[in-house]
């Protein structure tokens, strides 16, 4: 059952990611990215990360993707135009990316811990209680620094979106 759920949602994630790269219209790409994020949320649930799965759906698939769609529609972005010239990066980049993927997959197969595998319900330490306890004791300083980062991001967005620049 676990393996079947994993394979189903992994296949959906990979298909949506391929669609993201192949589509020329940004709205189709954005909707594919929502599909990737939704299936990744299911995989987080399988790994015992209830809180992360909820945050993934609310923050990523909800807030951030709505921001993306908002900007795409605001700018009235159209599909990419076809270019005639053969790009050199197509000749160089495809073998490089494939080599990277094969190398990383080989290393993972060789080095990954041979444990009992992932079973749903074996690890239950990813709920909101555990996350909150760790966030407000061990990771209190990074948490506070993050609030400053967000403050700077708000200021930056306001300054950049003014009319005069």
């Amino acid at each position, binding site marked *: 059952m676990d393996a*079947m759920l994993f394979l189903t949602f992994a296949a959906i994630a990979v298909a949506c990611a391929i669609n993201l*790269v192949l589509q020329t219209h*940004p709205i189709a790409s954005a909707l594919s990215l929502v599909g990737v994020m939704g299936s990744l949320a299911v995989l987080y649930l399988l*790994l015992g*990360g209830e809180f992360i799965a909820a945050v993934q759906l609310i923050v990523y698939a909800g807030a951030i993707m709505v*921001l993306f769609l908002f900007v795409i529609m605001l700018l009235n972005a159209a599909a990419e135009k076809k270019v005639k010239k053969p790009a050199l990066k197509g000749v160089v980049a495809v073998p490089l990316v494939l080599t990277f*993927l094969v190398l990383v997959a080989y290393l993972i197969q060789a080095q990954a811990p041979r444990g009992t595998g*992932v079973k749903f319900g074996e690890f239950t330490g990813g709920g909101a209680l555990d996350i909150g306890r760790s966030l407000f004791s061990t990771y209190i300083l990074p948490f506070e620094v993050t609030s400053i980062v967000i403050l700077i991001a708000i200021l930056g967005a306001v300054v950049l979106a003014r009319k005069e620049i």
Partner: protein
Amino acid sequence: MPSEFPIPLPALPLPDAVPLSWYLILSAILFSLGVAGFLFRRNIITVFMSIELMLNAVNLSFVAFAYQLKSVDGHIFSFFVMVIAAAEAAVGLAIILTVFRNKQTLEIDEVSSLRL
């Protein structure tokens, strides 16, 4: 187990528990697709979405390792990655709006005023 599942499932040679390496390889595949989108797309918004895809792929391996180590630290890391991604999206989309207002284009090859 499949015995209480309403539809009789076909007897596939699937393992009872998913190996951790499957999650890590899925993460590597998604990351490579993100790199490919970053390199091949010319729309500035699609390039930005490929970066988000790469961040998601890394989050998946963080959560997988958190499962393996039975520790909540990986979840905290991916939580911080999500927070930074939200801040990055706000600033990046503001930059894209400014670029579009000044150049009237979203093609990444036409925004090349820094090229010598």
